[in-house]
């Protein structure tokens, strides 16, 4: 997927990362606002009802005491009007056209037959009286009812009088409704504001984090085999993106190193093949033009030797590649490394002696391990080849085989000139060789590949004899 495609908003991680917290946040604030709204709503209602209860009980008592006395009705009217004014004053400015009316509360006194005795309230009492003519209304319990011509419900309480008749006190519920509406608006706006703020912030945050990822992607896009030196900018701080960038850069380091190694190797291989091929070609050309049959044979023979050498280089390279690539199937068998080393040394003894070297084998008895005998022989042969090739006459070589807590250790050390400094760090790399070396630079690389294929490791050591030392650590049973 190209970067462009990923820009499709819906599919961006930024969008999703921003969206999810926003949704959760919105749901959370919405729920708590709803809760607050319900709470306030019920508080307002209970406040109204408390007032109604108290006032109506008071008025009922008043009616009972003074109705039968002279001027009682006028006294009741004054008291009730007073109470209604009080409530009207309290809900100042509760909007709506109806608020223009003198009052939105009412007081009704009826006689035993249900007929109106006293009405104080909004003009046009007819609809009220019709709505309130309901004998099933319980005494002392708040109830709500609608009046035609009024947009909102009324809330009221009725008290039945002991001597028949009833007192009803009610208020228009507009006040509570308006409060509710106002609250609802407030809450919706708050919720919207919070939602926009929250989602913007989480989106910005997600984007600032993911921009780091995008930068890595852009850098990755610009990397190809020709340009491996590109590195991703590492953001400040120690967050996951910085960690990702660092990991990514380390991976690039490794890839660059191995590509570099491959280049060095192909160059070296091409170089190594050129000279023997040139020599072989020369000798064969010589043979073709040589009149004398003996010199012709000689030239062909030299060419054949050259070809053998060439083949050895190719084969060894393939073997190392196989071993390093883990494609080597080990033919494991139980063997005694002391015996195997002894055999290889006696095989090499004539060359070692001819070269004027002395070799000592220091071995523990019965150093048993499970390994591939052919490959170990080959590794040992390469080490001995190296000794024969590079040591000046008179040098002393010591091969030691011993058990260690972790497995088996084979060392070969000498009192020769040792490895040149330039080789110290990469003696086991392919095509690593000293300036004056005529070797292929593959011997130690194969040794390491073989030892590693067995789950061991080959390292350079510090020889007590003063020269070079190579240590082969092997596990008792190959882990391959």
């Amino acid at each position, binding site marked *: 997927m190209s970067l462009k495609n990923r820009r499709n908003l819906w599919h961006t991680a930024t969008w999703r990362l921003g969206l999810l917290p926003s949704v959760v946040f919105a749901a959370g604030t919405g729920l708590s606002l709803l809760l607050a709204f319900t709470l306030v709503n019920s508080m307002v209602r209970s406040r109204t009802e408390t007032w109604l209860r108290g006032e109506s009980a008071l008025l009922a008592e008043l009616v009972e005491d003074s109705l039968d006395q002279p001027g009682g009705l006028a006294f009741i009217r004054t008291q009730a009007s007073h109470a209604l004014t009080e409530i009207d004053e309290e809900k100042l400015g509760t909007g709506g056209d109806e608020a223009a009316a003198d009052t939105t509360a009412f007081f009704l006194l009826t006689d035993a037959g249900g007929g109106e005795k006293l009405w104080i309230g909004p003009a046009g009492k007819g609809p009220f009286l019709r709505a309130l003519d309901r004998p099933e209304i319980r005494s002392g319990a708040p109830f709500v009812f609608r009046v035609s011509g009024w947009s909102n419900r009324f809330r009221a309480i009725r008290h039945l009088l002991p001597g028949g008749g009833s007192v009803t006190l009610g208020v228009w519920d507009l006040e509570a409704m308006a409060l509710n509406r106002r609250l609802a608006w407030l809450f919706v706006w708050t919720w919207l504001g919070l939602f926009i703020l929250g989602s913007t912030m989480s989106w910005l945050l997600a984007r600032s984090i993911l921009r780091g990822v995008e930068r890595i992607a852009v850098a990755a896009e610009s990397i190809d085999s020709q340009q491996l030196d590109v590195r991703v900018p590492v953001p400040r701080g120690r967050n996951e993106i910085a960690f990702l960038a660092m990991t990514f850069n380390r991976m690039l380091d490794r890839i660059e190193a191995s590509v570099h190694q491959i280049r060095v190797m192909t160059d070296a291989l091409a170089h190594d093949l050129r000279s023997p091929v040139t020599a072989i070609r020369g000798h064969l050309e010589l043979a073709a033009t040589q009149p004398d049959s003996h010199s012709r044979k000689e030239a062909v023979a030299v060419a*054949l030797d050259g070809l053998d050498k060439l083949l050895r280089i190719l084969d060894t390279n393939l073997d190392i590649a196989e071993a390093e690539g883990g494609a080597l*199937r080990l033919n494991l068998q139980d063997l005694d490394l002391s015996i195997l080393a002894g055999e290889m040394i006696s*095989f090499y003894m*004539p060359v070692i002696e001819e070269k004027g070297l002395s070799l000592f084998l220091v071995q523990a008895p019965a150093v048993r391990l499970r390994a591939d005998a052919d490959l170990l022989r080959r590794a040992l042969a390469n080490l001995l*080849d190296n000794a024969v090739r590079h040591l000046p006459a008179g040098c002393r070589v010591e091969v030691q085989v011993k058990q260690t807590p972790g497995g088996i250790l084979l060392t070969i050390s000498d009192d020769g000139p040792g490895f040149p400094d330039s080789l110290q760090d990469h003696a086991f790399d392919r095509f690593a060789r000293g300036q004056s070396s005529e070797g292929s630079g593959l011997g130690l690389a194969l040794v390491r590949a073989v030892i590693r294929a067995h789950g061991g490791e080959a390292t350079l050591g510090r020889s007590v004899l003063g020269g070079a030392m190579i240590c082969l650590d092997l596990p008792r049973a190959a882990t391959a």
Partner: protein
Amino acid sequence: MRILLVEDDPAIRDFLRRALTEEGYTLTPCGTAEEALPLALAQEHDIFIVDLNLAGMDGLDFIQRCRGQGITTPVLILSARRSVDERVQGLEEGGDDYLTKPFALAELLARLRSLLRRAGPPEQEASTRIVVADLEMDLLRREARRGDRILDLTSREFALLEYLCRNRNRVISRTMILDQVWDIRFDPATNVVDVHIHRLRTKVDKDTERKLIHTMRGAGYVLKEP
């Protein structure tokens, strides 16, 4: 001896035709397995040399078809595939021997001989004495003498001499010597074999004009009567 060769590379076909004809074999070269199959089923050949990488029918298929038809003619596989797995597979699927390219002619000839020997009538009782000119080897007593001089040989030198004697008059490559005498299947970077041969030669051919061990430069060694 008639040999059926299945090899798609004309250069190798040509080279083998010349080399094997010179050795006295009659060679029928084929470029594909399809072409070779009827010839193989006619059972007119003593040995098949089969390349594994063929266009069309694969070398292994060819061998399996032959074996499926009850043909028991020995098969020498030639292949550029050199991994142990492929070698094992080649041998398991009916091949009798396996030689990787590139190979030394001497080695191919040696392997052909040994395959033909195995396929032919059983050899007479392996002799306990080998005589080449005035060189005598007593295999039971592990003793070798040249004329009346007893040779002082190490056990490996004895084995090397025995191998050369058994293959007298034939060129033996270093690879074959390494494999047969030391059980080593790689080519050391130093001339270890040459030094061993040199040592053996100073013991065998010392103080005599009649040299037995000869170097064939570029090919290997041969032990032959002077």
